[in-house]
C-alpha cells in the first residue's frame, strides 16, 4: 500500500503538535509527512515567550526534540512559506518554488497580531509581540530607550508587559476597556489585578483610546489619547488581539467566516473535504480560539480521522489559569453572570490581596463561572465542577471561603469526577486515561507523566492528577503508603522536621517517641542521613554506627569482594605532581588497582578493611581529604581547564570549581550530588548533566539545576543567568538546603524537581524571590553545617578509638583472606571460577 501523503502548512505550536501526534499514532508508518515552516526555526513555545527576556534562549523555548524530524523521516521546508494551493490537482506551491502533492492537507497557519488603525502605528519603535524575531526587535529598541507601552490589557498584553519590565523599561499598559482582561475578569478581580501589577511597578491606564502616535519630545514617540492626555514612550507594543491568518485559504477559495477565519466543521474539515484547518487560523462554530489547548484538541481530532477513527471537535472551554507577572489569575466559564438571573458569591480578602467570585445558576445547583485573583488554588476543583456539570454543595460559598480550621477539606474529591473529566488540558488527558495508565502499571506521578504526558505542559493539573492517581491506587489495594517503613508512619521530610524541631540527635530517642520496633536498614540509613544533614553527626560515633550503610560506616565504597575503594578529594580535578606521586606510592605499597573514574577523580580499589586507616594516614599527611565518594553528599565538581589555558574559555572554571567543591564538601544530602563547571558554552565539563551546573558566559555564570546523568538522564534546567559568584553561592546555598529539607529518601535532585509541585517556576520563586520567606534560615543552616565540616578520615587518623572499627577481626589481628588475580599489571578480584581453579593470589604480600 502506498503511503498517504500529508502536507502541513505552518510549523507553530499546533502544526508541530499535530505532527507529534501523528507520529505517535498507530498508523504512523502509513503516512509520508511534509511541512512548511516560514520562520527560521522550528516550533517553539509562544505561551512562555516572555521568558526569553528572563533568561530562556530560543533553544530552551523550542518544542522540538533535536533530531525529531530527521528521525521520523519528516520533510520540513525551513524558511519557506506555502503561497498557493491547487485544490483540484491537490498540490501546494511554496515561495521557493517547491510544488508537492498531498492526499490530505492540514492548514495550521496560526494568527497574526492585530494592530489597531491608529495614525502613526508604523513609526519606529511600534512593534508587535508574536515571534522570536519580534522579541529581538523589542530587545534592540529596549537597548536604546527607557519607556515601553503595551497597547492592550488582555492576557497577551500583560505577558508582553512582563517582557518589557524584564528588559528594565518603565512599563505602561494602556487598555481601551474600563478594566484589565475584560473578557476573563469582572470588575472586582480586575481591580485587584491592577493594584497588584501596579505594586510591581507597571502603570496601568484603563478606558484609554489612543488616537495618534507622533514624534515624542523626551522619548522616541508620543501617544495621544482621546481624553487629550499624552504619554511619552520609546516603544509601543501592540497586543490588542489576534486575527486568523486566512489569506492563503481565501486566495484559493476555501470558505471563510464573515469576519475571517477558515470555516471548519466538527471534523475540522474546511469547505474542501481533503483540507483540514486547525488552531488559531480556524473558525469553529463562530469562534476562533486564541489558546493553545483547543488547537491541540483539533490536532487530535484530525490525527484520529487519519487513523480511520471517528472523532469530533465540539468546541473548547476557554477557562484559563495563569501567573501574570507573578500574580495567580484564574477565569472559568462565564465569570460575568451574563444570564441575568445568575447569582454570585464573592470573597475578598484585602490584607492578603485575594479576590474570588463564583457565578451559579438561580437555583444555586450548578456553577456557571468563576474569577480567581491572587490565589488560584481552587481553579482545578471549580473547573471540574463546571465542566462535569456536578451539583454544588448546599452552601456554594464554601467552595471559595478559606478553610482555616482544616475541617471540610476537599468538597469534591477525585472520586466525584466522572471518567470523562479532562484533567490535563495541554495534552487532553482525562481521568479515564489516568485510570488506564494505573491499570497498565503506573504507580507514581513520574510514571503517569511518562505514559500520558499529563502534567508535562503548564503543570497546572499536577495536584489534581496526583490526587486521582492516589485514589485509584488505593482502590486497587495498592496502599498509597508514604510511611518510610514499618517502623515509622512518617515520610523522610516529616522525620527531618521532627528531628529539627525536637532537636533529636539519636535513633533510640526518635524511635521511642515517634516509631516502633528495632528499626531497619531503610529507616536507620534515613535517620543517620538526617542527623548528618541537621547536626553534622559523625558516622563513627557509637550511637551513629548502627545507622550507617556499609559505605557510610566504613568511609569507603564496598566493592563486590568486600574490599573498599579509596577516593581522596581532588577539588576541581586539579592535582599537583607531588600529590599524584603520593597516590601512586600508596597504590603501589598496598597493591591497589588504580583508575580514573567518571567524575575526574583517581580511585584506588581493593583496599582491605584493616589497611584503610594506614592508607588514609599517609594520604591525610600528604594533604588529602576524604572525597566522600561513599556518602550521600557532594561527590565531585567536574571542570574544564577554563580561561587560564583554553583559547575559548570565558572564565576561570577551575578556580570556580575548587571554590564550589570546598564550599559544599561534606554536606550530607538525601542522595549523592554531582556538580560541574564549564568555562564556556562548549560545555566540556557536562555541567548540564549535573545536580548543579555552572557555565560561564560573557556576563557571568549561568546556573543550571537538577540535571542527572546515570540511569535516567535529565538535562538540567536553566535556573538563572549572568550571575556573580556571590549570587551563585547564595542561590545554590538556598537550593541545596531546600532540597535537603524537602526531598524524599534517596531522591536525586532531578526526581525531586520533577515531583515538586509548581516545578521549576516554584523553585525559582522560593530560591530567587524568597516567596516562602525562608531564605535567611536556609542560608544560616548551610553556614552552620559548613562551619562544622571536618574531614571524615582525618578524624580516624587522629583518634585510635575510631580506627578500631577497621579491624578485620575483633579477636585476631591478622587480615582476612582475600583473593585476587593479576590483569594488565594490576590486581583485581578473583572470579568464583578462578577461586575454584586455585589460580587466585591469596592475601597480598605488602612491598
Amino acid at each position, binding site marked *: 500500500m502506498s503511503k498517504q501523503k500529508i502536507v502541513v502548512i505552518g510549523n507553530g505550536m499546533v502544526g508541530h503538535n499535530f505532527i507529534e501526534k501523528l507520529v505517535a499514532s498507530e498508523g504512523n508508518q502509513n503516512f509520508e509527512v511534509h511541512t512548511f515552516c516560514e520562520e527560521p526555526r522550528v516550533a517553539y513555545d509562544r505561551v512562555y515567550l516572555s521568558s526569553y527576556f528572563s533568561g530562556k534562549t530560543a533553544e530552551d523555548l523550542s518544542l522540538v526534540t533535536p533530531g525529531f524530524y530527521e528521525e521520523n523521516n519528516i520533510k520540513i521546508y525551513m524558511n519557506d512559506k506555502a503561497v498557493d494551493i491547487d485544490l483540484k490537482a491537490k498540490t501546494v506551491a511554496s515561495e521557493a518554488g517547491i510544488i508537492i502533492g498531498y492526499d490530505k492537507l492540514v492548514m495550521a497557519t496560526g494568527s497574526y497580531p492585530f494592530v489597531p488603525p491608529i495614525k502613526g502605528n508604523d513609526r519606529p519603535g511600534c512593534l508587535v509581540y508574536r515571534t522570536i524575531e519580534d522579541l529581538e526587535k523589542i530587545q534592540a529598541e529596549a537597548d536604546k530607550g527607557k519607556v515601553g507601552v503595551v497597547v492592550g490589557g488582555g492576557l497577551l498584553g500583560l505577558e508582553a508587559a512582563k517582557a518589557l519590565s524584564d528588559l528594565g523599561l518603565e512599563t505602561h499598559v494602556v487598555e481601551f476597556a474600563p478594566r484589565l482582561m475584560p473578557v476573563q475578569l469582572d470588575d472586582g478581580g480586575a481591580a485587584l489585578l491592577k493594584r497588584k501589577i501596579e505594586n510591581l511597578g507597571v502603570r496601568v491606564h484603563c478606558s484609554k483610546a489612543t488616537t495618534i502616535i507622533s514624534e515624542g519630545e523626551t522619548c522616541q514617540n508620543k501617544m495621544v489619547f482621546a481624553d487629550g492626555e499624552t504619554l511619552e514612550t520609546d516603544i509601543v507594543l501592540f497586543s490588542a488581539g489576534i486575527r486568523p491568518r486566512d489569506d492563503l485559504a481565501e486566495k484559493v477559495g476555501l470558505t471563510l467566516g464573515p469576519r475571517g477565519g477558515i470555516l471548519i466543521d466538527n471534523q475540522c474539515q474546511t469547505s474542501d473535504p481533503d483540507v483540514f484547518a486547525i488552531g488559531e487560523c480556524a473558525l469553529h462554530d463562530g469562534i476562533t480560539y486564541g489558546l493553545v489547548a483547543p488547537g491541540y484538541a483539533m490536532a487530535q481530532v484530525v490525527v484520529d480521522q487519519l487513523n480511520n477513527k471517528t472523532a469530533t471537535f465540539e468546541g473548547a472551554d476557554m477557562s484559563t489559569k495563569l501567573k501574570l507577572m507573578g500574580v495567580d489569575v484564574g477565569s472559568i466559564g462565564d465569570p460575568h453572570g451574563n444570564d441575568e438571573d445568575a447569582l454570585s458569591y464573592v470573597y475578598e480578602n484585602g490584607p492578603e490581596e485575594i479576590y474570588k467570585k463564583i457565578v451559579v445558576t438561580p437555583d444555586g445547583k450548578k456553577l456557571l463561572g468563576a474569577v480567581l485573583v491572587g490565589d488560584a488554588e481552587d481553579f482545578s476543583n471549580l473547573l471540574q465542577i463546571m465542566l462535569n456539570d456536578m451539583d454544588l454543595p448546599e452552601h456554594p460559598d464554601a467552595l471559595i471561603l478559606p478553610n482555616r480550621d482544616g475541617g471540610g477539606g476537599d468538597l469534591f474529591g477525585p472520586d466525584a469526577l466522572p471518567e470523562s473529566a479532562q484533567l490535563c488540558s495541554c495534552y487532553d488527558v482525562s481521568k479515564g486515561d489516568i485510570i488506564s495508565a494505573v491499570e497498565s502499571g503506573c504507580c507514581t506521578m513520574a510514571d503517569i507523566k511518562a505514559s500520558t504526558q499529563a502534567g508535562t505542559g503548564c503543570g497546572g493539573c499536577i495536584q489534581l492528577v496526583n490526587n486521582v492517581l492516589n485514589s485509584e491506587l488505593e482502590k486497587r489495594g495498592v496502599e498509597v503508603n508514604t510511611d518510610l517503613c514499618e517502623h515509622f508512619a512518617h515520610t523522610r521530610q516529616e522525620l527531618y522536621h521532627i528531628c529539627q524541631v525536637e532537636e533529636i540527635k539519636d535513633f533510640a530517642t526518635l524511635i521511642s517517641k515517634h516509631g516502633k*520496633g*528495632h*528499626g531497619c*536498614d531503610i529507616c536507620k540509613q534515613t535517620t543517620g542521613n538526617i542527623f548528618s544533614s541537621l547536626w553534622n553527626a559523625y558516622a563513627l560515633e557509637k550511637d551513629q554506627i*548502627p545507622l550507617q550503610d556499609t559505605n557510610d560506616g566504613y568511609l569507603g565504597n564496598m566493592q563486590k569482594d568486600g574490599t573498599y575503594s579509596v577516593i581522596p578529594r581532588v577539588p576541581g580535578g586539579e592535582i599537583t605532581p607531588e600529590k599524584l606521586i603520593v597516590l601512586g606510592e600508596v597504590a603501589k605499597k598496598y597493591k591497589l588497582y588504580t583508575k580514573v573514574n567518571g567524575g575526574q577523580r583517581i580511585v584506588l580499589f581493593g583496599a582491605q578493611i584493616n589497611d584503610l586507616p594506614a592508607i588514609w594516614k599517609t594520604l591525610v599527611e600528604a594533604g588529602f581529604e576524604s572525597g566522600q565518594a561513599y556518602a550521600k553528599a557532594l561527590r565531585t565538581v567536574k571542570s574544564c581547564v577554563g580561561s587560564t589555558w583554553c583559547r575559548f574559555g570565558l572564565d576561570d572554571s577551575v578556580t570556580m570549581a575548587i571554590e564550589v567543591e570546598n564550599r559544599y564538601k561534606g554536606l550530607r544530602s538525601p542522595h549523592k550530588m554531582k556538580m560541574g563547571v564549564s568555562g564556556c558554552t562548549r560545555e566540556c565539563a557536562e555541567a548540564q548533566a549535573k545536580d548543579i551546573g555552572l557555565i560561564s558566559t560573557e556576563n557571568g555564570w549561568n546556573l543550571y539545576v537538577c540535571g542527572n546523568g546515570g540511569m535516567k538522564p535529565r538535562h538540567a534546567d536553566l535556573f538563572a543567568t549572568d550571575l556573580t559568584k556571590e549570587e551563585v553561592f547564595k542561590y545554590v546555598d538556598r537550593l541545596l538546603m531546600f532540597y535537603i529539607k524537602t526531598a524524599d529518601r534517596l531522591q536525586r535532585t532531578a526526581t525531586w524537581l520533577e515531583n515538586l509541585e509548581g516545578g521549576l517556576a516554584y523553585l525559582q520563586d522560593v530560591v530567587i524571590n524568597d516567596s516562602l520567606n525562608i531564605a535567611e534560615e536556609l542560608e544560616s543552616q548551610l553556614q552552620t553545617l559548613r562551619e562544622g565540616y571536618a574531614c571524615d578520615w582525618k578524624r580516624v587518623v587522629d583518634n585510635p578509638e575510631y580506627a578500631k572499627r577497621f579491624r578485620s577481626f575483633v579477636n585476631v589481628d591478622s587480615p582476612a583472606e582475600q583473593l585476587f588475580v593479576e590483569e594488565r599489571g594490576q590486581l583485581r578480584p578473583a572470579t568464583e571460577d578462578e577461586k575454584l581453579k586455585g589460580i587466585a593470589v591469596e592475601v597480598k604480600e605488602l612491598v
Partner: protein
Amino acid sequence: MSEFQSVCSVNDLIPDAGVNALVNGQQVAVFYIDGKVYAIGNYDPVGKANVMSRGMTGNIGDALVVAAPLYKEHYNLATGVCIENDALSVPVYEAKIENDVVFVKV
C-alpha cells in the same frame, strides 16, 4: 562436639551493629542487640564475599534481621533464613554473654 569459645569482651561490641570474629578458622558475624548476642556465618551467599558483619540490623515483623551489605537481602538472625528467598540461608551459631565475655560455638 564443638565447644563455646570466648571471642571478645562486650565492650568490643557496638549495640545494634556487628563485628567479625575468627573462630576455628571460620569467619563469624556477631551482632549485639538488646543485650543479647547473635552469631551467623560472615559469608554472604548472594554477594559471595565475607561481609555479613558489616550489615545493618533491625526487625521485619517479629524477626530480628541483618541486611546483607552488598545487595540488601535480609537474613533472620535466629534461623539464618533469608526473608526474601527462603531457599537461601546462612549458618547460625550459638552465642552467649557470660561475665561480660562473648562466647560463640562453631
